[in-house]
């Protein structure tokens, strides 16, 4: 596949080369006769070498600005705080390195994020850099939905002790404010949080009972949707049993596209709850949704549609 200037198309994927979604996308891109390059920062800075100025971004000699489009599977964290849970042994090994660790992390983050923001200015990047922050700013995501008239469940977020004193949260669900930790009933969370609650910030949301629906969409339309079949846990990701492909009503499709537009996303997995009366409540939009398992179970061609979008809008 060639672009309008006769150059062979090349699409970059930011993510781990071992990641299922990355592997699937790479395969799909290559099936289209397009070159796929995985940009894996796992061994950065020791074994991944890059340099850039305002005119070029060279990764091991290859100029990323000559590529046509990019998909970001993983951006890494935004704030200079390592999020991995260190074991006690690892912690002890870090002794002596601590003073350098966070300084290095700040510098490494600044390098990668500056480079990706520069790419975002020059090329098609899915999803755009700015939309990734919503994964770590759920209260702001909810604020925007509410402000623009999209139906969401009641939520309360902020300083844990104030909220627990003021709101009857026990029947609500606890959601992680940042990242992908398990969603559990608030009362279960409160039992385990114990004494650390005083300094913590939390997000509780009204438990909306119904079917978990996942809708995949690109900015130009819906790819497909399904009911997620899962075990008795609150969080549908804990015990996934399968999917049942469904067609969502037109107004839900419009809500999904509107939500994505509000958050500046070009591609998303949007979560809804379908109530018994058939109405839908919007839960959230994911800037880098997993689709490998979903695609396998549902046969909905998420990855194919995604790379067709990248090829069409990246200059072919």
């Amino acid at each position, binding site marked *: 596949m060639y672009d309008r200037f006769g150059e062979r198309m090349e699409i970059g994927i930011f993510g781990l080369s071992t990641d299922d979604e990355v592997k699937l996308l790479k395969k799909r891109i290559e099936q289209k006769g397009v070159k796929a390059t995985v940009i894996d920062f796992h061994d950065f800075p020791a074994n991944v070498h890059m340099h850039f100025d305002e005119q070029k971004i060279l990764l091991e000699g290859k100029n990323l600005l000559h590529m046509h489009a990019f998909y970001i599977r993983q951006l890494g964290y935004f704030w200079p705080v390592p999020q991995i849970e260190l074991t006690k042994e690892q912690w002890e090994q870090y002794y002596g390195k601590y003073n350098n660790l966070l300084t290095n992390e700040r*510098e490494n983050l*600044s390098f990668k994020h500056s480079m990706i923001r520069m790419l975002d200015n020059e090329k098609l990047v899915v999803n755009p850099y700015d939309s990734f922050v919503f994964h770590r700013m759920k*209260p702001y995501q909810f604020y925007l939905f509410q*402000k623009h008239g999209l139906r969401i469940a009641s939520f309360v977020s902020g300083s844990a002790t104030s909220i627990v004193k003021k709101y009857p949260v026990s029947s609500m669900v606890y959601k992680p404010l940042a990242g992908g930790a398990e969603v559990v009933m608030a009362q279960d969370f409160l039992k385990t949080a114990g004494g650390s609650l005083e300094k913590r910030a939390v997000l509780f949301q009204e438990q909306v009972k119904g079917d978990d629906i996942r809708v995949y969409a690109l900015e130009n339309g819906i790819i497909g949707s399904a009911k997620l079949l899962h075990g008795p846990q609150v969080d549908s990701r804990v015990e996934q049993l399968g999917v049942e492909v469904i067609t969502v009503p037109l107004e839900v499709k419009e809500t999904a596209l509107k939500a994505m537009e509000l958050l500046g996303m070009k591609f998303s997995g949007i979560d809804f709850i379908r109530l018994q009366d058939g109405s839908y409540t919007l839960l959230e939009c994911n800037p880098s949704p997993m689709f490998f398992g979903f695609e396998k179970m549902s046969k909905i061609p998420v990855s194919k549609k995604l790379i067709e979008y990248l090829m069409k809008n990246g200059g072919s």
Partner: protein
Amino acid sequence: MLVGIIGDERDIHVYTLKNRLESLHCTVDVIYFPYADMMCTNDHMMVNGRDILDFDAFYVRAIPFFLQSQASHRMKKDVWNQLYTQYMDIATINNERIAVYTSLMNVMNDVCLVINPFPALFFQHLKPFQFYLLAKHGIPIPPYLATNDVATIETIDDAIYKPLTSNLHVEKKTVVELKKIMKERPVILQQHAKGKTIRASLLSDGLVGAAEIKHKAIDSRVGHCSYKEITLPAFVEEILLKCLQVLTMKYSEIDFIMNGDDIQILDVNPSAGFMMLEEDANIPTSLKIAEYIVRQIR
């Protein structure tokens, strides 16, 4: 008028600006996010018991992080090992509180005047992206390269080492030193611009003042330095105001080098300290920021 200042009340910049705003009959609430009482619901975005919608403006002195990037002293191994449990708590608390207060800061941006707007605050930590935008808009900056590739170390003539964020000093490094650093982190190599070092204080509607910084080390923050107020030509003010526009800032302290009629921008600071210019060069930045806030609200 109700103005929020995001920062630590013990910070001289925070309480100086608070005093200035109060002298202009503003009510000021200092919000220190690590300990602020925050509450977001479908209907209200509250901080310290006040709805963000009730504020007329915010001034952001700093986005706080709980986990400091540099410990003030080296710890003994046994002290370090005892901190393990505490660290895991801090990391969790840090992520959660940041999610809430960055959400609140974005809501602030949506509803009222914020100096500086949330996206602009990141330029302090994303210097290569700052340089890219300035260069792309034709603003003169010294040639630079952000790199972790040792093969590129000697591609910039007369290069100095710059950190990508603001925590480390700018200095000359040998090739051996750079190779050692680049095993752990990337660097910015930038051509050493020579001339007078100048810091200018600007608001989006004009220059507040400027001072020449006399210093011996490459980094004007290292060792003794002195400030002397100077007058800038109109064309320089134009370039400086363009920097603010490009980086979507409403206020900045801009560092640059001036050599005759040539200028080279070094750094556009989104949350700079203004007390040095205020105390040593008698440039009344805090009063001008306060007046700007009142003027913009009206």
